[in-house]
């Protein structure tokens, strides 16, 4: 399983764009990159997933360079409610049989 490295914590202010970068130098050809968000006292929640280039949904964007050795989760115009832990995961996705390993995540704190 590819190991991931991401910052332990980040601070931001409401209305700013936040970019969290994850390093995964040993990513395998068939691995996907998946990001989860976790609020206190809740289970992680799927945010976005991608394989290469750029993926965008209503919550975030995911940028993946051509070598796929890193990825950046971009949260536009964050609010206080975006304060959470964000996990970058890399693993084989087999549609229901996937095995994803969580690291320690990035604690994002958004202030007024």
């Amino acid at each position: 399983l590819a190991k991931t490295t991401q910052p332990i914590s980040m601070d931001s202010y409401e209305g700013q764009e936040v970019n969290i970068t994850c390093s995964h130098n040993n990513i395998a050809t068939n691995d996907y990159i998946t990001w989860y968000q976790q609020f206190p006292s809740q289970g992680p929640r799927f945010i976005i997933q991608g394989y290469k280039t750029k993926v965008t949904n209503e919550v975030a964007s995911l940028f993946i360079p051509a070598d796929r050795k890193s990825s950046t989760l971009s949260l536009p115009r964050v609010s206080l409610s975006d304060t959470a832990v964000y996990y970058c995961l890399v693993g084989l996705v087999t549609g229901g049989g996937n095995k994803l390993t969580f690291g320690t995540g990035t604690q994002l704190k958004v202030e007024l």
Partner: protein
Amino acid sequence: EAGVAQSPRYKIIEKRQSVAFWCNPISGHATLYWYQQILGQGPKLLIQFQNNGVVDDSQLPKDRFSAERLKGVDSTLKIQPAKLEDSAVYLCASSSPGQTNYGYTFGSGTRLTVV
């Protein structure tokens, strides 16, 4: 659709006692996972079921932990006897090949405190 249901929400027990957690996955999800999340750490996979069969239990401390999913639907995770280091949140998740994002859906977890 209904989410992943877990109970109880909180549990406090003394060391050496036993405890059981229950999980009901999203209807139709064939794959069910149990994770252990210690405070300040990411979730760690304990066991993975595909229908009622175990796919991966390599990180399950089998001397004290057991899990079953008899009818391929809901599941129970048991700890007997509990140790202080078992204090954690126990998360259940499920997934299905039919999901467009191939992501997991997690329950809210059971917070276990062993004193």
